[in-house]
């Protein structure tokens, strides 16, 4: 890699090119941009807004659950809130969070490209996201839906609430996801820099590539499914509603055929982030590069054949339960391979405990516990007691919050200097990280116990013996909420008043640090030639700036 001719060039006097942030400051220059970095930043803002919206819904739910009887809101209000919490968090935050925001920003930089393969399509993906979000929010304002994010029929085909706009919103958001996935696949195939063969690609790129495959293959099935439910509601067409000759379990098969792989859409990019950051903070080459890269593809493949483990008590045959049960065990293996290799990466490294590293530690613990409880849930006889209880809620929040959100925060802190060229306050970063990790445990560990105790999910009122654990969980959720607000504040301060950061504050040898921070619009003056693996720390000089004029 031709890296460190850089500083000498800068000293030689040629003025650096303006960063992508300075290249046009009007609103139109943002709304009409084709720059992957600006699209990524716009996605980042949008998903953070969605995250706080979904978080407010979550905290309202937790407040209601302080009391076993009616409290604060009525049953219908509660049912609408948990539906909105699920829809917003999954479709507006988790699915686009890492691929569309950080993937867009970092992936072309990592492979030494000037942009993604289809820059206009990339911008279109953002507008599809906005359109889908706007329609879903229209549905929320006009009464919201009370189906849960799973839209199980025949409830969803018969309830009088505003299911249609929400379904339509989800349908359009699906296209945003497909377009982004397609764009990344083509980008990775065609725009890699000279010398960057597949087995040299950064592991984050492998994670995003595997995610994109799932997005392109699975999301159409979700589109078809919600479309059929819409037609059933709208035109009385009997596909899923037995009163009209349909089959309600068919819906569950089709829905989970998307929604189980969708779990990996949310988790694989998170795993990619951890693969990058663990190397950067341990200053060490990835232990088992091939194993980590290939297990991403393995998850993307086997993830398509496990959907039936959501239907163990839904009346599917015992044989099906056995088949899906054993296939689900295989997905766990790929995750286990990754975890051992991440821990192995730390062996004989040079570990710096910075804010992103705190989230890496949280991620590792939560992913092991969340993942293994997932395998436990796929153990057929145990699932019978746990199915549709708070144990399931706690399990998937361990994965969605404990893994995906922790990785999102690690990525946000790790790439913040890259994206904005500013430094945040490290002390507050660690305070917020400890609050979040503590609050997370306090919120969701009691929910595992509630599930064991037998409290079903989506309960507005509950028998009184569940109250103590619910109060503990609510207390934890307020800590979690405080943690996120602190992050929002210190990052906003850093954006406005933060110190100018160095070009590569972590001394990272990830390829995205080859160029300036923040990068110029065209990323590289001269497309770099890659000659080594990412995160090779056998020599100490950090990757410098490719000369940009």
């Amino acid at each position: 890699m031709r890296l460190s001719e850089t500083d000498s060039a800068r000293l030689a006097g040629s003025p650096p090119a303006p960063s992508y942030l300075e290249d046009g400051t009007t609103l139109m220059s943002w709304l009409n941009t084709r720059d992957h970095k600006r699209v990524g930043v716009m996605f980042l803002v949008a998903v953070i807004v969605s995250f706080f919206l979904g978080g407010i819904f979550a905290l309202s739910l937790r407040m209601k659950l302080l009391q076993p009887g009616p409290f604060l809101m009525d049953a219908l209000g509660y049912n609408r809130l948990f539906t909105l919490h699920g829809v917003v968090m999954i479709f507006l935050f988790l699915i686009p969070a890492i691929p569309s925001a950080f993937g867009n920003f970092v992936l072309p930089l990592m492979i030494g490209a000037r942009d993604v393969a289809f820059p206009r399509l990339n911008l279109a993906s953002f507008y599809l996201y906005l359109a889908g979000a706007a329609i879903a929010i229209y549905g929320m304002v006009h009464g919201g839906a009370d189906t849960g994010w799973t839209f199980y029929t025949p409830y969803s085909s018969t309830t009088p609430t505003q299911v249609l706009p929400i379904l339509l919103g989800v349908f359009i958001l699906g296209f945003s996801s497909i377009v982004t996935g397609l764009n990344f696949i083509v980008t990775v195939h065609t725009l890699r820099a000279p010398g960057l063969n597949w087995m040299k690609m950064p592991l984050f790129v492998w994670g995003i590539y595997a995610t994109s495959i799932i997005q392109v293959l699975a999301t159409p099935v979700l589109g078809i499914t919600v479309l059929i439910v819409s037609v059933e509601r709208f035109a009385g067409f009997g596909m899923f509603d037995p009163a009209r000759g349909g089959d309600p379990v068919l819906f569950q098969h089709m829905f989970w055929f998307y929604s189980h792989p969708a779990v990996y859409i949310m988790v694989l990019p998170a795993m990619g982030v951890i693969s990058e950051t663990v190397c950067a903070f341990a200053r060490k080459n990835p232990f088992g590069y091939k194993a980590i890269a290939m297990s991403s593809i393995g998850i993307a493949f086997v993830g398509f054949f496990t959907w039936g483990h959501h239907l163990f008590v839904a009346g599917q045959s015992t044989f099906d339960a056995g088949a899906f049960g054993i296939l689900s065990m295989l997905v766990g293996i790929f995750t286990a391979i990754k975890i051992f290799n991440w821990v192995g990466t730390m062996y004989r490294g040079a570990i710096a405990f910075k804010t992103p590293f705190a989230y890496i530690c949280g991620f590792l613990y939560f992913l092991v516990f969340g993942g293994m409880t997932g395998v436990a849930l796929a153990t057929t006889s145990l699932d019978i007691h746990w199915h549709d209880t708070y144990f399931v809620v706690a399990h998937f929040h361990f994965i969605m919050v404990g893994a995906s959100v922790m990785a999102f925060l690690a990525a946000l802190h790790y790439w913040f200097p890259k994206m904005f060229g500013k430094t945040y306050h490290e002390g507050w970063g660690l305070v917020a990280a400890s609050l979040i990790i503590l609050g997370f445990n306090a919120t969701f560990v009691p929910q595992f116990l509630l599930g064991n105790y037998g409290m079903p999910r989506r309960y507005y009122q509950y028998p009184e013996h569940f109250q103590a654990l619910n109060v503990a969980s609510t207390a934890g959720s307020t800590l979690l909420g405080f943690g996120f607000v602190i992050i929002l504040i210190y990052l906003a301060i850093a954006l406005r008043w933060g110190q100018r950061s160095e070009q590569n504050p972590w001394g990272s040898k990830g390829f995205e640090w080859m160029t300036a921070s923040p990068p110029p619009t065209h990323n590289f003056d001269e497309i770099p030639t890659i000659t080594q693996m990412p995160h090779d720390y056998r020599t100490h000089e950090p990757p410098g700036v490719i000369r940009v004029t």
Partner: protein
Amino acid sequence: MNELLRRLLFLPDQASTFARDVDQLHFFVILTTFVMSTAVGMTAVFFFIRYRRRSETQTTPHIEPPAWMEALFVTVPLSFFLLWFFMGFSEFVRQQTPPSDSMDVYVMAKKWMWKFAYPDGPNAINVLRVPAGRNVRLLMTSRDVIHSFYVPEFRIKKDVLPGRYTDQWFNALEPGRYQILCAEYCGAGHSIMRGEVIVMKPQDYEDWLASAKRGLASRQDGAPTSIDFAPPIGNLIEQGKRIAAEQGCFKCHSTDGTRHIGPTWLDLYHRREKLNDGKLIDADEAYLTRSMMDPALEVVDGFQPVMPSFEGRVSGPEVAALVEYIKSLQSDAVRTGPSEGPAYAPVRNR
């Protein structure tokens, strides 16, 4: 040990023949999970302490795992997962295969109540009576959306679907009372769609069944209701309140004037109600009784005909007690208008 772990993990009592076996595997799985996640966490902490960064220009060696280590990464978790799978699946097969000597009870779920029907006689709302120590098979279906029959103490759960039957069997160990919960989200009343399993001593169960059959026969014959079924002598209003609670009336009717699935009972007596065919009626004793026996005939405007018939389910004296109870629900305010619409209504009738 079993009892200690059960309490630590907040598991409910082990009241069926499945419970103990399921919990044994549960303990094994959760303990492995704890050990593994702690081991990974501790290793990370150890590496962090041992290999913390000493200088900003520190270099590290390039290390890749040998093949045997990668193989270990795969085989160790895989053997655990497969062990769990086979242990779990053999128990699952047992749970899914009802023994041939089971006694059958039919279960019908609807928003938001459970109905139980015994092939040779009585039926009941929200209360399932079974003898201890006997295999019971539930044959379940739903009248509207998907529900799920869940008894935590028995470690059983099965979705109850419209348009098809699912079955679930269990064998309760000891006499006792256990809550039935609905575990599949089914709308506004989902969280209060609760029932009760009463496990009786086999002899008590036979006695109850016999008396229930007698009561059924006498009512079908039109003869005076047997003494077993007459409400005990006492305040009719109090009895009515108790019967209304037992029959699940309050799931749809409020008594404080708030809007719900059915019209509120507050000030219902002698209210001028507009029906859905435009007719105006006076909610007198006769109308209240007709509404219990044939609810779909005269439906108040704005409400859906979702109420089941209570014909044969409440006896004459019980109807009287219910009517007296409704009559007693009078507010001080003078109300003349018809009922407001329901707080919640299904899109169409079933």
